[in-house]
């Protein structure tokens, strides 16, 4: 469960986030939808405690990302927009490294690795070095690395960027499994289809503020449009920076 109220963040003179509030519930996928540069990544970085907000409150399962940074990290799985894999390590070593940093035992890490190999279909490249991996393989490693300690809350920044159709399908299936298991999932995206296929709630961000928030049917009803895309264009006034 994530609660965000009245969040502000600026870099020098640029105000990236100007008063964002929303909530993300357990067992739901919440989508932060917005054009490039809307403030999605900045918001996520504040959620996962690497960037302190200038004003506003964040609560992740009742914890504050700045005051309880270490406690929050134990229950948070993050896939940043730059996957940041170690190219000279194998997929297995990448995942194991993070498991060890979480203080997990060797046995439980091995169990998780077997699980990932099956569920994310990673067996073929588990012991290859990440150098030269396809985008799809990289995202899988990044997700496995983020999920190795079975966090309750999952944050994904543009997870399907650069993925082919097959990988996108696998990724969506995995996210829906997580949702079914009761995880709280927040993903940022600028791809409409992703929102339509995955999200229970949509938070539309543009220019650092929230343009609209609600379930897809509610957003459609509010704008009187038949498709999410039209609704979105109505709500932020432009379709710039979006992918259908």
């Amino acid at each position, binding site marked *: 469960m994530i609660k965000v109220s009245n969040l502000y*963040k600026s*870099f020098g003179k*640029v105000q*990236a986030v100007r008063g964002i509030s929303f909530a993300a519930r357990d067992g739901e996928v919440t989508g932060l939808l917005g054009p490039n540069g809307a*403030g999605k*990544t*900045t918001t996520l*970085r504040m959620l*996962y405690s*690497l*960037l*302190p907000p200038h004003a506003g409150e964040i609560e992740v399962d009742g914890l504050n990302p700045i005051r309880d940074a*270490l*406690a929050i*990290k*134990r229950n*948070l799985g*993050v896939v*940043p927009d*730059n*996957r*940041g*894999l*170690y*190219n*000279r*390590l194998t997929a297995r*070593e990448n995942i194991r*490294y*993070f498991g*060890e*940093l*979480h*203080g997990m035992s060797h046995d439980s890490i091995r169990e998780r690795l077997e699980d990932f190999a099956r569920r994310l279909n990673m067996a073929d490249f588990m012991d290859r*070095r990440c150098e030269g991996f396809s985008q799809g393989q990289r995202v899988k490693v*990044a997700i496995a*690395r*983020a999920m190795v300690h079975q966090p309750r809350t999952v944050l994904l920044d543009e997870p399907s960027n650069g993925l082919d159709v097959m990988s996108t399908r696998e990724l969506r299936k995995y996210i829906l499994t997580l949702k079914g298991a009761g995880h709280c999932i927040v993903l940022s995206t600028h791809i409409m289809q992703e929102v339509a296929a995955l999200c229970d709630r949509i938070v539309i961000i543009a220019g650092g503020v929230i343009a609209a928030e609600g379930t897809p049917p509610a957003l459609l009803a509010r704008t009187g449009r038949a498709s999410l895309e039209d609704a979105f264009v109505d709500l932020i006034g432009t379709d710039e920076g979006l992918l259908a």
Partner: protein
Amino acid sequence: MNGILVVFRKEIIESLRDRKATFNSLLLGPLLFPLLFLGLAWFGISMQQERAEKPLRIPVVGAEHAPNLVAWLEEQGMERLPAVENPEEMVRRNDAEAIIRIPAGFGEDWQAGRPAPIEIIADPSRRETSVTINRVKGLVQGYSGQIGSLRLQLRGVSPELARPIRMVDVDLSTPKSRGMMVMIFLPYILMLTAFVGGLHLAMDSTAGEKERRSLEPLFLNPAPRWRIMCGKMLATTCFGFASLALTLISFRLTLPFLPIDQLGIELRISTQSIFTILLVIAPVTLLAAALLTLLASFARSYKEAQSYMGLVILIPVIPSMLFMTNPVKPETDIMWIPLFSQNLLIGEIVRGEAVPAVWLLASAGGTLALGLALAFIAANLYNRAGLIYSGMSG
């Protein structure tokens, strides 16, 4: 604590898999430095010998003004070259190392018993000519002394009267301590190795990770950042130490091949001395790792880090340069100063002196203290958000 070990192990594995970097930091130094050292020493020694033994071939201008002197010089083995038009120009162009010019008034002064002038035209700022110049001067002085003694004897005076003082050199330098003069570069090379060995790892594991954006997910783990930093710093230390140890071993193996027996120099470093030197410099590898990590976390990119590193490798040079031009006596007070103390201690060990334990402790203590202080600053840098997101747009 286990966060530190986890990071340490990963950095070591990752670095060892980077073949080029491993070769550069672990093998290049140990292979190159002793070779360079051997080559330079061999070259220097043989050049000196060649100059000291090859026949002197000196142009003489105005030989007709002092035929006896010239005949004597030739008798001593100097080969006289014909007079040249413009001796100054010739020396300036480095066509001759030295030229003797005997002015027209030589004979007149000689006859009158006044010191007769003779000019040695040379350019001592060309250091390679110093052996030749000294040999020419020595010959002329020899003639001058001989004639002076004869003149006194002719007048019934003992030549001894003109030499109130007889200087005697009592040379206490042993073949071993003379070896030290050849060894003046050793501390410098070893200190440099301690710095350079971990250089690549420090840059790659901090500035490099930042550039490849893997620092962000790494900091999402519940390990305190100072532990992550310590792991990286220890890995850097480890590479520096390994590089140092390999260089010392390689020196131990190659030194016996230095052609120095001819110079009356004994240069043997026992295996035990090698160990002592390794122990003396070991704290420097930590200091170097802390400094490198600190600088690497300042840098926004690998490139920027590289530009700082050029300056870093000048640091171990400073004490060596200072001591080369301005030798200092080893004392307990100096032993607290990092890098300076190691420089002096290596010198003492190579000379075969017994080194007081207090010096070793002071040296290690001072160096470790500075290293830990730098590590502390680096740890604080690691805690800033700017470390990950500097140079990025939000």
